[in-house]
């Protein structure tokens, strides 16, 4: 095997659209990068920005949040709330030195298995180009002079 960098993506998939899109991609035997590790949430609106931070800190090279298309949310507009948080979080991560492509928001309806698979492939390629995230080095040391991840004050899980 070549020594190609294999990024790890944590995917937060909403139960109603994008998780089912991923199910459909599998059922249709669409081949795509196995680099995304899905976590099911009921709605993309459940994705607390801290989940994203947590995943990046735990070693993910990127995070994908996937929900229903605007207007098609099972919970009326949870995806819109996810979108609002997403842009805020993205702006913040950018300031911390995390490249924009590392967090992505995707809309995939339950019938869009192909689209979801393509997005995972594209994101995997983009992360391959960027290389590993190295959170501790990139974010903690550079920004705050903190010595380790444990000392980072913003992250407080319940």
């Amino acid at each position, binding site marked *: *095997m070549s020594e190609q960098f294999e990024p790890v993506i944590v995917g937060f998939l909403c139960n109603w659209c994008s998780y089912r899109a991923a*199910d459909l991609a599998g059922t249709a035997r669409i081949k795509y990068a196995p680099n995304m590790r899905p976590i099911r949430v009921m*709605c993309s609106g459940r994705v607390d920005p801290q989940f994203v931070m947590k995943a990046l800190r*735990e070693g993910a090279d990127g995070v994908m949040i996937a929900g229903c298309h605007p207007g*098609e949310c099972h919970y009326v507009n949870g995806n819109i709330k996810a979108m609002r*948080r997403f842009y805020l979080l993205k702006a913040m991560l950018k300031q911390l030195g995390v490249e924009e492509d590392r967090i992505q928001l995707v809309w995939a309806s339950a019938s869009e298995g192909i689209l979801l698979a393509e997005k995972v492939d594209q994101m995997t390629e983009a992360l391959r180009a960027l290389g590993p995230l190295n959170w501790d080095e990139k974010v903690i040391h550079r920004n705050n002079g903190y010595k380790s991840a444990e000392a980072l004050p913003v992250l407080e899980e*319940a």
Partner: protein
Amino acid sequence: MTENKKQEKIGVYVCHCGTNISKVVDVEDVAKWAGEQPNVEVARDYKFMCSSLGQELIEQDIKEKGLTRVVCASCSPHMHEKTFRTACERAGLNPFLFEMTNIREHDSWITDDKVAATVKAKSLVRGSIDRVVHHEPLDEIPVEINPNTLVVGGGIAGITSALELADAGYHVYLVEREPSIGGHMAQLDKTFPTLDCSACILTPKMVDVAQHDNITLLTWSEVEKVDGFLGNFTVTVRKKARFVNEEHCTGCGICIEKCPFKEVDDVFEAGMGERKVIYRPFPQAVPKYPVIDKDNCVYFKTGKCKACEKFCPTEPNSIDFEQEDEMLQLDVGNIILATGYDLFDSKKIPQYGYGKLDNVFTSLEFERMVNASGPTDGKIVLRDKKSKPKSVAIVHCVGSRDENYNKYCSKVCCMYSLKFAHLVHERIPDAEIYDCYIDMRTPGKGYEEFYNRLLEEGTHFIRGKVAEITDAARIPAEEGKLIVQVEDTLIGKQRRVPVDMVILSPAMEARAGSKEVSQLFKMGCDFDGFFVERHPKLDPVATMTDGIFVAGACQGPKDVPESVVQGAAAAARVAGLISRGTVMMEPVRASIEQDACSGCRICNNMCPYNAIIFHEDREVSEVITALCQGCGTCVAACPSGIITGAHFTNDQLFSQIEGVLWDMKETVSA
């Protein structure tokens, strides 16, 4: 750090799924490895976990080894979560202490790379192991089903749903925004392929609706607000003022006769005919009471006239100019949406000339024209209402199968176009008929046979999409005609076909405002505006919102028999829920820790269901469990982190994140 302080006994079961999983994922290795993970008591792999033997394996281990948690790595939870939860329950373990890992749809089926698939399987299993430790036993929430049902839309689909439920003994509120039920089907002349008279088969059903003890018919009414959830919806309906008292009116129609003013009827007659200002859309309208068109009524505009009131023979007088809109509150358990379709506006395609060239008609205009009770008494005539056309062109796929307008096939147009061709043959036997189609789509019982019949009747079929309809003649034979410019793809030539009349077959489109309607009912609609069913194949009448069903063309283009099927199917689903009386709902709900709430109210506006109330006295927010649907948006938004989303708690999700990234630890925080 979310440490796994708890000591649990977890059973991990890795499924081969025949070879579906095992040919890509090294399931033995995953099971062996899983056995070494924290809290795991036993880990096994098995050919088919969902088989009764596989389930027994779980049950046995729960009983014998005293498992407190179960993880099953197999297919999607949407496939078998229920199966395994039930198995746990049988063995005495709370079903919510089970977690499913999807290593088939999300893993073995998407890659051929065995190493990567096995690594991914392990990470997903570890995510589940770490998550399940934090699971809490939960009880499903029982919800009682109110036996009343709301049906929105009184076309053939809604009528069918209403009658099926009413006949089964359940009460139905049928809400229709027009003055009469009947929908588009009431406008049609004949129905394909049997050529039954549409009104003859529809009106008896409409009368049944009016006379049924179990149906409350609310026409000239619209749904304004929907609150609640499966089993207990509260719906606010605006019953618009008719200015006719339904209690006194006998439907004699004298007021209509005496009304001195006429208006063009854009709705029922598709602009082809006129109606009075006080009117019934058509003679067999149900209910029979007329309605005053307030915007055009001279009395409402000038304060003079009142002819209808003067001539009304009832005692007391049925005309009531003071009548106001009435707001009704209906309590229902289920809702069936059968709001129908709009016809594509042919003016959007200027090269077809509709609206500019007089003798270009739309399908609905032609339907009214050939209808014996229509504006021309069933005579096929040009716009001058006198001359008979000697040649007619029918144009398929107007606004459908077209990248510029609607990509989808509107499904019914081929068949009704064939019907038009037949009707022209029947009424004007010597007319030349040209039928321009892209592909002839006639799947359906007796449909292909109908097409063959038309081929024998002598219709000229031209395979090609019409480029233009114009009155600009190039040769004397084209003078005074409409020229249909079309590429005949079967002979590979451009043709100019001069005709007297053109009938366009526009696409069925979602109703204007269907997006707003879908938001009102808190359900989804697709890009084209059609309502989205729960599953395109296996659940075509339910929606993603429990207790809300769809029927007819509001879900996608459909002909009459299909609308009837779906209307009946929706009714059967509702009847099933009503007869169960109580349904169990997943306990995935949010709750706010009352002592810790700071009363910031951020969550209040987050909730799409208004399920969070604020106690002014205590200055804390609280979730009304019965209204909560469990999306978790408030959980993510709470700045104090004191809203718990049951079964999707922060502990569970943070642990799962750590779990799926278990192999990254050494590489990162060295």
